[in-house]
């Protein structure tokens, strides 16, 4: 709000009550600031906000129909290339914040995978592991899930430390251990949802 001084013009010999009223006007204004007290383009920084994070979702899916003989021992099962940054380097860092998989046919519970960051280079996937997990059996039934990275805003920067940023990089599910019975039922699927997080951006 606009600050209005009670006594915009003071007496020639200043009266103390005039001064007191003006001080009170200013004091009250300081503890009731609103949008109007800031310039139209005040450039208030994101880090000055208590709630400053955006979350986006990356889905990595594998379907039974895509597999010849259940979960394989190797190979790129799913990959999403996306945009951690734009052409400038001054965006806030992106972090893998959360990763959660579900599976509707875990077979014998022996299939394993690696969640990796990387890219396709000269025809092949070149990546570095972020996390790994087993598509384990809970003991009965067909379905299972695992929340294998939880609410971690600092451990998994994207790209990982040591990687030079490139535009055509992203996340992939790489098979690392076979289970011929996993995803052998028609219509079954494995899905890993990754939540990536960073501060709001100015670009």
């Amino acid at each position, binding site marked *: 709000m606009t600050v209005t001084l009670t006594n915009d013009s003071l007496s020639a010999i200043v009266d103390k009550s005039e001064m*007191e009223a003006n001080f009170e006007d200013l004091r009250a204004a300081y503890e009731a600031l609103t949008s109007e007290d800031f310039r139209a383009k005040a450039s208030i920084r994101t880090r000055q906000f208590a709630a400053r994070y955006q979350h986006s979702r990356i889905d990595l899916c594998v379907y039974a129909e895509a597999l010849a003989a259940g979960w394989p021992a190797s190979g790129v099962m799913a990959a999403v290339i996306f945009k951690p940054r734009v052409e400038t380097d001054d965006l806030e860092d992106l972090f893998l914040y959360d990763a959660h998989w579900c599976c509707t046919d875990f077979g014998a519970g022996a299939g394993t995978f690696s969640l990796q960051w990387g890219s396709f280079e000269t025809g092949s996937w070149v990546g570095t592991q972020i996390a790994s997990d087993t598509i384990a059996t809970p003991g009965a039934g067909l379905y299972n899930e695992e929340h294998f990275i939880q609410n971690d805003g600092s451990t998994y920067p994207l790209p990982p430390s040591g990687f030079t940023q490139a535009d055509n990089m992203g996340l992939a599910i790489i098979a690392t251990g076979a289970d011929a019975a996993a995803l052998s039922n028609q219509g079954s699927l494995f899905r890993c949802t990754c939540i990536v997080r960073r501060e709001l951006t100015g670009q």
Partner: protein
Amino acid sequence: MTATIPYGTLTDPIDREEIMANFRALAAKLGALDTSDLTASAGITVAQMASPYQDAFVHLEVRAEALASGWPGSGILAAAPYPGISTNEAWKAVAVHWACTDTGGGTGAFNVKLGTFVSGNFVSATTIASSVLISNGAAANDSNSGAEFTKTYANGTGLSFAADPRSIVIQGSSADASTLTAQGSFVHVCVTLRRAVQES
């Protein structure tokens, strides 16, 4: 923190030291404002923020099992509804990335478009990316990926809302009969959308 002035009541006649102490207290407050100085519903606007933008990823995937004879030269191959409603600020497309695990002859291509399904047909409103080539990495039938464009918000492709529902689609633009013929192979396209955070 709450603003305080040391002399809410001044002596009479006024003591200049009291006046100066009050001025100093108010001057010191500038530069030390924090959240408690803002009203609970201060209404800081997007224009007053230095970094107001959020992203959303739209995922479009085409799998080998869905194709009769490799990558087609036309047709809608994948579609995703355009997120948001017309009373929100529209998004801008700031990036298109793709990954493919069977690039075939390297001649397949696709368009990324925003449009509407009307009377059984797709009617394009905006072309986000045109004739994106699913090129070979090093040899035929290998894996590859690419970044079609990456832009700042200011240079992004505006995607207006309309009264009609709208979808972002992958449309075949050039055929390659040997692309996506390997079982389990796929093309995944990720469109990055960006806009300012919304007030509602």
